[in-house]
C-alpha cells in the first residue's frame, strides 16, 4: 500500500503539469481578443495604450516562452493577474475560497448524513414505503438540474412560505463577523454574534440542501446497495446468533462493512460538488469561487480561467488520492506494502 501511495503522489504533479498545460493551451486558442477586455473598446484605437498593455501582460511574447513563464510563476504560487479585477488571481481565489468551502462542507454534511440515513433505512425496510420514498428522493437528487432546483426552492421557501431568507450569504444590513476562518457561521459563533450566526446559518440552509441533494442521491443508492449486499452475508447471521439487537447488527456490523465502498463515492462526489457549486453559487448569489469562474468565463478573463481550472483540477486530484488512502486504511483486508 505504501508503494501505491508513493506512486500516486508522484503521479499527481505530473498530472497537474498536464492540467496546467491544457489549461494554458486552451486560454490561448482564443477567438476573442483579450486586449479588448483590458483596455476597453475605445482605447483599442490607441496604439500606445495597446502596446503598453501587450508588454505588461506579456502578450507580445511567443507562446512557448509564455508557457515557461507561467509554469515558473505557478511554482511560486503566482497564478497571474486577472484581466478583469486587476488583482492577482491567487488573491482573488483566496478571498473567495472560504465562501465556497463553507457551502461545500455544508452540502457534504447534508449529503453524507442524509444519504447514509436514507440508505440504511431503505435497506432495512426493503421494498416497503420507506424504501421507495428514499429511492425516489435519491433519484431526483441526481437528475434534477441544480440551478433549477435552487430557483424552485428559493421561490417556495423564501417567497411563498417566507421561512428562509433570500439569496446572499448575509443580510446586507448586517456586518460580516471578523474573519477568523472565513466561514460566516463559525466566525459569528467565535465572535459571540448570535444574530449574525443565525442569519448566516439560515442562508446556508437552502444552497446546502440544493447542492447536497445530488450527493445525497448517490450516497443513498450506494449505501442501500452495499447494505443489502452485506445483510445477506453469513457474519450478519452469526451476529444475530450472538444475541445482538437488530440495531447493533445494522450499525456495528452491516454499516461498517457497507461504508467501505461508500468512501470512494464520497471522494468521487467531490466532482459533483464542484460542478454543482458553480451553478448553485450563481443562483444564490453566493460570493465564492463558482461565481468568480462564471464571471471570468463570460469576460474572457484568461488568467482567471486558467487559475480556477488549475485549482479545481488540483483539488480534484488531491481528493481522489486522499480517498484511495482512506479506502486502503478502512479495509483491513487491503494489505500494506
Amino acid at each position, binding site marked *: 500500500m505504501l508503494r501505491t501511495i508513493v506512486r500516486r503522489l508522484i503521479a499527481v504533479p505530473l498530472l497537474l503539469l*498536464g492540467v496546467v498545460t491544457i*489549461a494554458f493551451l486552451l*486560454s490561448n486558442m482564443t477567438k476573442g481578443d483579450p486586449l479588448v477586455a483590458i483596455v476597453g473598446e475605445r482605447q483599442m484605437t490607441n496604439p500606445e495604450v495597446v502596446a503598453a498593455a501587450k508588454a505588461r501582460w506579456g502578450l507580445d511574447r511567443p507562446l512557448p516562452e509564455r508557457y515557461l513563464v507561467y509554469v515558473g510563476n505557478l511554482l511560486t504560487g503566482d497564478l497571474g493577474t486577472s484581466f478583469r479585477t486587476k488583482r492577482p488571481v491567487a488573491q482573488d481565489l483566496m478571498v473567495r475560497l472560504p465562501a465556497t468551502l463553507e457551502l461545500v462542507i455544508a452540502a457534504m454534511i447534508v449529503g453524507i448524513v442524509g444519504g447514509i440515513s436514507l440508505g440504511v433505512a431503505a435497506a432495512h425496510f426493503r421494498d416497503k414505503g420507506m424504501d421507495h420514498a428514499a429511492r425516489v428522493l435519491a433519484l431526483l437528487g441526481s437528475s434534477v438540474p441544480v*440551478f433549477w432546483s435552487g430557483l*424552485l426552492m*428559493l421561490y417556495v421557501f423564501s417567497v411563498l412560505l417566507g421561512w428562509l431568507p433570500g439569496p446572499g450569504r448575509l443580510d446586507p444590513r448586517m456586518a460580516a463577523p471578523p474573519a477568523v476562518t472565513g466561514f460566516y457561521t463559525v466566525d459569528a459563533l467565535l465572535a459571540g454574534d448570535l444574530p449574525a450566526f443565525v442569519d448566516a446559518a439560515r442562508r446556508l440552509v437552502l444552497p446546502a440542501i440544493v447542492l447536497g441533494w445530488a450527493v445525497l442521491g448517490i450516497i443513498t443508492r450506494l449505501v442501500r446497495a452495499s447494505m443489502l449486499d452485506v445483510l445477506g452475508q453469513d457474519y450478519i447471521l452469526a451476529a444475530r446468533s450472538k444475541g445482538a439487537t437488530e440495531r447493533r447488527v445494522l450499525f456495528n456490523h452491516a454499516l461498517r462493512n457497507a461504508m467501505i465502498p461508500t468512501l470512494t463515492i464520497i471522494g468521487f462526489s467531490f466532482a459533483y460538488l*464542484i460542478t454543482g457549486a458553480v451553478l448553485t453559487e450563481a443562483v444564490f448569489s453566493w460570493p465564492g469561487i463558482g461565481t468568480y469562474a462564471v464571471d471570468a*468565463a463570460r469576460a474572457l478573463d484568461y488568467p482567471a480561467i486558467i487559475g480556477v481550472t488549475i485549482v479545481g*483540477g488540483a483539488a480534484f486530484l488531491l481528493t481522489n488520492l486522499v480517498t484511495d488512502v482512506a479506502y486502503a486504511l478502512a479495509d483491513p483486508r487491503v494489505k500494506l506494502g
Partner: protein
Amino acid sequence: MTDATLPAATPAVRRRRTRPQWLTLPVIIGIAIIAFWVIVAVTVPLWTPYDPLMIAGRRLQPPSAAHWLGTDALGRDVLVRTLYGARYSLPIAVIVVAVAVAIGSALGAIAGYLGGLADSVIMRLVDVTLAFPPILLAMAVTAALGPGLDNAAIAMVAVSWPVYARLMRAQVLSLRGREHVEAAIAAGASRPRVLIRHILPLAWSPTLVNATMDLGQIVLLAASLSFIGLGALPPTPEWGQMISEGAVHFYSWWIAFGPGMAILSMVLGFSFVGDGLRDLFDPRSGT
C-alpha cells in the same frame, strides 16, 4: 451459505410471463419519455399555435387557458418555447455523445490492443482530462472558443470522451485473451482485422449503457453551460438559457418551470433506459 438458504423451488405452476425481466416499469416510463421528446422535437413546428421567437401575448403572464405555461419577459409563450427546446437539446446530445463515443472508443481500443507506448500516452491523456471537474473544463474550452451552442458542443465532447476510452480499453483487454481471438491470430489474421472483426463486436455493451445515460447528462451539461451564458445565446429557446431568463424574473416562476421539468424528464428518461439496458446485458448486476 449454510443450508438455511431456500433450495431452488420450482413451483408447479408458472405464472405466464409476457414481459422480459429487464423491461421494468421505470424502463417503460423512460422509453415513453424519450419517445415523447423525439416526436415533439421532430413534429412540433407542425402543430403549435405560437412561434417560439415571436411575441404571442402580454409579457410575464402567469399560466392561463391561452398560455398553459404563461408568457416570458418578452411575451413569448413558455410552453411552446419549452417544446421547441427539444429541437436543440436532443440533437446536441446525440451528436456530442456519438462523437465522444467514436473518439473515445477508437482511442481506447487502440490503447487496449496495442499496449505499450500507445497505451501509456493515451491513458495519460485520459487521466489528465479526467482530472478536471467537467464543468470547469467545459467552461474553459467554451471561453477559449467563444460562446454559442456549437462551441459548447465541442467542449462537451472534450469532457466526455475519456470515459469511453477507459471502457473500451477495459473491454478490449479482457476480450483480447479470448479463445476465438487467439484462433483468429493463429489463422494469420492481421492486427486491425482481429481488432475490428473479432473483438469490437463483443465490446459494445458497457459503452452502450454509458452512452445512453450520458445523453441525459449532456442535456444537463448543455443547459448548465447555457445557464451561465456560455452556451446557447438568446433568443434561442434552449432550456438552460430559458431558466437563466427565469432567474432574472424570479417572481414569474413559470418561466423556469417548463424548461426545468423538461430537463428533469430527459435525464430521468435516459437514466431509466440506461438502467434497463444494463439489466438487459447483465442481469446479475444492479441493485
